[in-house]
């Protein structure tokens, strides 16, 4: 087990390095000059511009700039925001926590909805199956930001007393916090639950036709034992994988959902930074998000190996 973990983690390193190159190059590819963006104005004397360039190290060769930048990132220094002139990391972390909570809530909701509907669909078949798959098809076609906008519209029209835009920090009032994140989490979870539901359904159907389930049924095991010990356990593997892999789309989706519901998370931070051309922040968010997605994929692989003894990485 320890070896599996180590091998997977080691695989991450070259990819992370590549990710850092992409994030670095993206920032150098900007229209206009990095030094100008840093100063926040285009009306600079050539001398002043030159001073800024030198202080940012822009006069050195690109590879040297990259190594210097990477070295600082590895020490946790993501640079200063062009707007607030404070370290990016300190501003990012509290927002990351909000986004993480939203993503986690949405992930759990999606798993709950997806696994339940998929299981029902596969076990009951017939009309239930038909209804679940029809709903899934519909939900798949409605993008999360459209769902969120429609939820806001409906709430505004019919339930004006619910404060949709009242985000409450968790430490102020945990219950109000969960309540304020519920609608955003639902709009984020719907489309993801479809993928989980369809995969659960396919997995349960596949497992139920296996010989060992027939044997279990033939030797008279209780229905519930078969369901829990045989079907659910074996169908769990693909479900875990899919849920983990959907994290990337949840994280991406939270950017949109946060701006709609005005939740002060990483997505809204990114959105503001784009309007302000605050490039160190954009860069930091891109790096952090990619690292989280990579880590999650590794965790999925490990969970996969834990649940399914047949998987090995030798």
């Amino acid at each position, binding site marked *: 087990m320890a070896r599996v973990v180590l091998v997977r983690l080691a695989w991450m390193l070259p990819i*992370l390095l590549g990710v850092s190159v992409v994030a670095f190059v993206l920032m150098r590819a900007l229209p206009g000059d990095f030094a100008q963006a840093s100063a926040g104005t285009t009306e600079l004397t050539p001398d002043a511009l030159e001073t800024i360039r030198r202080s940012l190290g822009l006069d050195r060769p690109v590879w040297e700039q990259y190594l210097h930048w990477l070295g600082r990132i590895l020490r946790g220094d993501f640079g200063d925001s062009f707007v607030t002139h404070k370290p990016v990391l300190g501003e990012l972390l509290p927002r990351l926590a909000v986004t993480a909570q939203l993503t986690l809530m949405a992930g759990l909701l999606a798993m709950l909805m997806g696994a339940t509907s998929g299981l029902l669909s596969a076990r009951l078949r017939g009309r239930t199956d038909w209804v679940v798959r029809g709903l899934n098809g519909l939900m798949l076609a409605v993008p999360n*930001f*459209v769902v969120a906008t429609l939820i806001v519209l409906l709430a505004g029209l019919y339930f004006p007393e619910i404060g949709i835009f009242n985000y409450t920090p968790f430490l102020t009032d945990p219950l109000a916090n969960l309540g304020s994140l519920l609608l955003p989490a639902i709009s984020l979870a719907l489309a993801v639950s479809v993928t989980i539901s369809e*995969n659960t359904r396919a997995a349960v159907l596949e497992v139920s036709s296996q010989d060992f389930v027939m044997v279990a049924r033939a030797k008279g095991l209780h229905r519930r034992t078969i369901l829990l010990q045989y079907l659910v356990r074996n169908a769990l593997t693909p479900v875990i994988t899919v849920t983990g892999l959907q994290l990337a789309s949840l*994280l991406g989706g939270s950017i949109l959902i946060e701006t709609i519901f005005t939740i002060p998370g990483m997505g809204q931070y990114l*959105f503001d930074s*784009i309007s302000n051309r605050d490039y160190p922040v954009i860069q930091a968010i891109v790096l952090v998000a990619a690292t989280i*997605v990579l880590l999650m994929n590794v965790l999925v692989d490990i969970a996969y190996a834990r649940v399914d003894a047949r998987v090995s990485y030798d």
Partner: protein
Amino acid sequence: MTDAAEPRRPRARGRVLLALGLVMLVGMLVVTLFGPLIAPHGAATTSPDSLAGPSAAHWLGTDSIGRDVLSRLIIGGRTTLLITFVAVSIAVAAGLVLGLLSGYVGGLVDELIMRTLDIIFAFPVFLLAIAVVAALGPTVPNLILTIAIVYTPTLARVVRGPVLSVKRWDHVEAARSVGVGEFAIATRHVLPMVISPILVQTSLTLANTIFTVTALSFLGIGPPPPDPNWGGMLSEARQFMELAPLTVIGPAAAIVFATMTFIVLANGLREVLDVGSR
């Protein structure tokens, strides 16, 4: 994760889905291609009554500065669909070249291509799209380029997988033994055998691209004004949506219709061509 347990669904259902998808697609294309001829008003033409409800002159009402919602939807579809189709065409072409090269040549080339694509894969698609558009600036060519970049890895993988097994089939060996060149084998004897999964994935990518394009526009980093587009219209309409719900429901319905079209097409293709459920 195949539907092995399930009896193969009758192809008839696939044909119905495929036909339905094609009808939806053709309808959408006709309306958007002939948009300026069909639209009752100009996209920027304003009328004195803003945020009006549906009427004979304005079927879907007007927006906050009195422009006809229906006309803007029809004309806005042009920008949205243009970006979608061009970007996906580029991604499919790049995916074909990279996937074929990777799967057919194998070895070091395969490693190099797949590991590079892994890097792009590590980013959440939407986040990468935002970052690239933010870095390059939100113009139509940049949006096309960005979307092509973020969807190329998926398509390359879909091409590579089947190529890996098809290249070992007997007919490939036979072609080689009678002296057919490697390039001709790859394009004429391997590629045609993997076309079905590519078609299905292309259709799914079109659905995903509608999402990405409209979402970027929704965030305000889509095609620049004054040309309308669906995501931008939805975003603008939010401010006054309680006064004129149709200004929100119109673009929302257009986005859902376009996404639905490509999902229906993908499912139809999948069943008719008998591609595995994933």
